[in-house]
């Protein structure tokens, strides 16, 4: 896929870091403010879609990023299940909130909820980008 004009590329270069940071902020503050793993993950996936649309992608690059995206999606799902199984091991209940609750409204509070948010954020971000790649670069990924 071809890239876009120089104006789009320059603006993308300036904005891309800020959008990524905003996505990470939404994920990390999911237990304090509106948002969470799903919303932040979609914003992070949007960063990669924007980069792909603005700069275009080569055949090798698309293949490589599809593999990376599927690895990250699996890692996110595994993290989520591991947190759930830790609850089963420690307290005998699947998804038990085994960590200390801490003071409400602090970043490190609410036990396992922020870690679940991070796992879902990774999973949703990688998963949504791999849907986009499956639509955009299907020919190259499936060639062999």
């Amino acid at each position, binding site marked *: 896929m071809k890239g876009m004009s120089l104006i789009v590329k320059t603006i993308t270069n300036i904005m891309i870091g800020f959008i990524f940071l905003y996505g990470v902020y*939404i994920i990390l503050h*999911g*237990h*304090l*403010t*509106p*948002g*969470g793993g*799903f*919303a932040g993950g*979609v*914003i992070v*996936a*949007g960063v990669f*879609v924007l980069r792909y*649309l603005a700069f275009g992608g080569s055949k090798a690059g698309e293949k490589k990023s599809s593999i990376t995206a599927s690895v990250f*999606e699996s890692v*996110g*799902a595994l993290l*989520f*299940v591991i947190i*759930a199984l830790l609850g089963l091991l420690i307290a005998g209940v*699947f*998804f038990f*909130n085994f960590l200390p*609750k*801490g003071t*409400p*409204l602090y970043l490190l*509070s*609410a*036990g*396992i*909820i922020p870690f*679940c*948010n991070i796992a*879902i954020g990774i*999973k*949703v971000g990688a*998963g*949504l980008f*791999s*849907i*986009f790649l*499956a*639509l*955009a670069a*299907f020919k190259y990924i*499936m060639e062999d």
Partner: protein
Amino acid sequence: MIELYLFLIFMLVAAIIATEIKDLLAAVISLGAVGFSVAIMFILVQAPDLAIVQIVVEVLTIVIFVAVILKTTHIDETIAEKFSGTQVLATVLYAVFAILFFIAMVRAMNDIPPFGQATMRVAGQYIRLGLPRAGGANLVADVILDFRALDTLGEATVLFTSVIGVVALMRKIGRRQK
């Protein structure tokens, strides 16, 4: 309350335009109007979590739709000038089903509580125990990742399913040759 109904009427009009218009780019923009109205309605009924997700997903889908349309064609060739017999039959059957469904729905509506005054049997417990039991300041996060985390585990597989759907739709091997 009245603004919710205004948005509902606007959404209905935009949805009908999206299905009937011949220019696909205009259809996608009308679809976007429906999606953003849903986001505004979420804000009006005080659900910012859902509004954020709705806005972000809507932007991403419209970008993907527009990218596809720019690469392929603007004109929708599936809208027929004349209706065939099967189309008329399907429309009549659909209308009959819709009327039956509407009658059943009106009878069922008498039994549910009025808008904005839910019985809150389960939700009341969530609101009462959310902060002391789960400890998160955002009640939505408490519900979806503590009280109902198993539900979220199932929801997390939805994206994986949709990747499989895309691959199954676009594959060449295993499809019957014409």
